[in-house]
């Protein structure tokens, strides 16, 4: 029973990171590095929280969160795509700004409780032994994230748009010469990154914890960036990485709760250490297999001679 509870908790803990990772994956596949995921998640968390509290409707909250995250990402998009500014710097600025903005605007909401999505077990599927308890007794946002993974895979590999995204990220000159709008594709992908990051943040504040605290993402945005590398920019591996992270997180939380005699703060460090190890592993693996980042990642595109 402990194991099942941990697995179910792993799914819940992994969901915000999964959403953010999928979003960043699209942005990076199109060649834009967005290190502002942390800031977008926090802004989304606040927006979703406020909207849910004010309207009582968690779906409106999700909408607001997506809009907030997407809107913030557009600043990064304009700076990096149209103005060709340094993408690392812009992403860092976005994180600093988003963190500060959410903390400043959210001060009135600290301590205010919100009820997010009530868990809705999927009829039928929820009764499957083991899998049902782990996968199908969550709230709708989790189910949405389940659907997003294959949808992302299909979009990327089986649609024309996905082909354009991959081309733009690998060799924008070739895509441009083929008539694709490099900027257009990149804007859309960065916006997707922002919307999903915002949704991930909203899940944290409305569904996972039900409250707003300053800096509540605690680095999950950065973990998402690392997981994109672990995923070798593929949606299916991204899901694996996100749920793995969720598992580590859930495990240490449950160990704490179960009163294990391990120092709390050392346990809290495990997700970050885990992510560093994951990053080392992923880097060696991509080097070995000669898979790699999209070749044009973080390089601004100018149509030149």
């Amino acid at each position, binding site marked *: 029973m402990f194991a099942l509870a941990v697995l179910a908790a792993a799914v819940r803990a992994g969901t915000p990171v999964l959403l953010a990772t999928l979003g960043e994956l699209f942005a990076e596949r199109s060649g834009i590095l967005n290190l502002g995921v942390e800031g977008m998640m926090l802004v989304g968390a606040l927006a979703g929280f406020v909207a849910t509290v004010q309207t009582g409707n968690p779906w409106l909250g999700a909408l607001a969160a997506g809009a907030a995250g997407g809107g913030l990402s557009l600043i990064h998009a304009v700076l990096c795509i149209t103005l060709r500014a340094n993408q690392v710097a812009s992403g860092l600025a976005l994180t600093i700004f988003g963190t*500060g903005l959410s903390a400043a605007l959210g001060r009135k909401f600290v301590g205010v409780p919100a009820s997010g999505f009530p868990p809705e077990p999927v009829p039928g599927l929820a009764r499957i032994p083991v899998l049902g308890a782990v996968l199908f007794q969550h709230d709708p946002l989790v189910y949405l994230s389940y659907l997003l993974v294959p949808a992302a895979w299909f979009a990327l590999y089986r649609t024309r748009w996905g082909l354009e995204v991959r081309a733009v990220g690998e060799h924008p000159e070739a895509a441009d010469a083929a008539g694709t709008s490099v900027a257009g594709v990149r804007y859309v992908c960065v916006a997707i990154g922002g919307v999903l990051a915002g949704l991930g943040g909203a899940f944290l504040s409305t569904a996972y914890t039900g409250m707003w605290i300053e800096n509540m993402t605690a*680095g999950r945005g950065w973990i998402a960036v690392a997981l994109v*590398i672990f995923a070798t920019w593929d949606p299916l591996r991204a899901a694996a990485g996100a749920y793995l992270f969720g598992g580590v997180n859930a495990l240490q939380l449950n160990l704490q709760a179960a009163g294990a005699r391990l120092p709390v703060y050392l346990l809290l460090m495990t997700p970050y250490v885990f992510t560093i190890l994951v990053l080392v592993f992923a880097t*060696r693996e991509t080097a070995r297999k000669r898979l790699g980042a999209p070749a044009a990642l973080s390089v601004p595109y100018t149509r030149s001679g």
Partner: protein
Amino acid sequence: MIRLERRASPAPWAAGAVPVVAILAGLAAGAGLFALAGVSPLAAYAGLLSDPFGSVFGWSETTVKAIPLILTGLAVLLPARMRLWNIGAEGQLQCGAIAATWVALWTPLGRTAGAVPALLVAGMAAGAVWCLVPAALRAWLAVNETITTLLMNYIAVLLVSFLIYGSWKDPQSLGFPLSPPFPAASRLWVLLPGTRVHAGLLLALAASAAVWLILARTRWGFEIRVIGDNPQAARYAGISLARNIVLTMGLAGALAGLAGAGEASAIAGRLQQGLSPGYGYTGIIVAWLARLNPLGAVLVAFLLGALFLGGDGLQISLGLPIAVVNMLQGLVFFCVLGGEALAGYRLVLGRGRVAAPGPALQEPP
């Protein structure tokens, strides 16, 4: 029709004008956000400006805030000259504070005349080690240092919590997470009596000069500059990338650690949470605004230190969280980036043409 046309090289007025205009633009945008937060922008800016510059005490407090910012700015700037991003200055700072606390409280040195130099050196060593882990991963395993340095920040903060809630907790602190106070011998000396301006200022200024000297007048600095400009050319010239990554990040970490040791020893007098309101992250902005120039970083650090001080004041007077300072910094950073990018363009009216970058950086058509 108005379009943007690329210049062959950035406009000459850019270097000076961009930071100034960008800061003003950022503050203007901040006014809008203040209004959104339900605060009068005028009151906020009045508070922000009057505190740091309104009195001698204000100036001294600005200096106090500038000291760690100079050091973290250098800690970001030096690796950035080599195209490495050290966003772990915050964690390196915390480790410096931990090491300083250890010397002050748990070694016999802590009560002797050698306490201060010892704890400063320990702080530098701890910061260097904390930065060397991502540096080694980058140098030998090609692991992206941007993410690893940042993740180490979270670990360092947790380490501080672990210590001050645990074995380093002050039994007399009534449950607050604090270490016992440093003995008097371990307190960093005050330079200006009546203020909190401490000897760290001299160290910070010396560090700025030292980094400048390294970059401009040594072979190591030459190698850093070549790597930063063209890593392939550096390799071709026989310059060792791995060695330079380790040395540069090591020094950077040491500088950030020094900042932490200084804050713990001079300002807080103990190890506690909130030693740094984000000096490590602001260091990134210091480095960028200073255009990676170690001497310019001093001036920028003072400006941003003033911003922090103003933010402190706003916390008291208007009930705004210190996070507004981060918000404003982020806005200014955006505006600087945008401004720099725009300086690479010029406005063309009417039917412009799609231009290509000049022949300078590419072969002739």
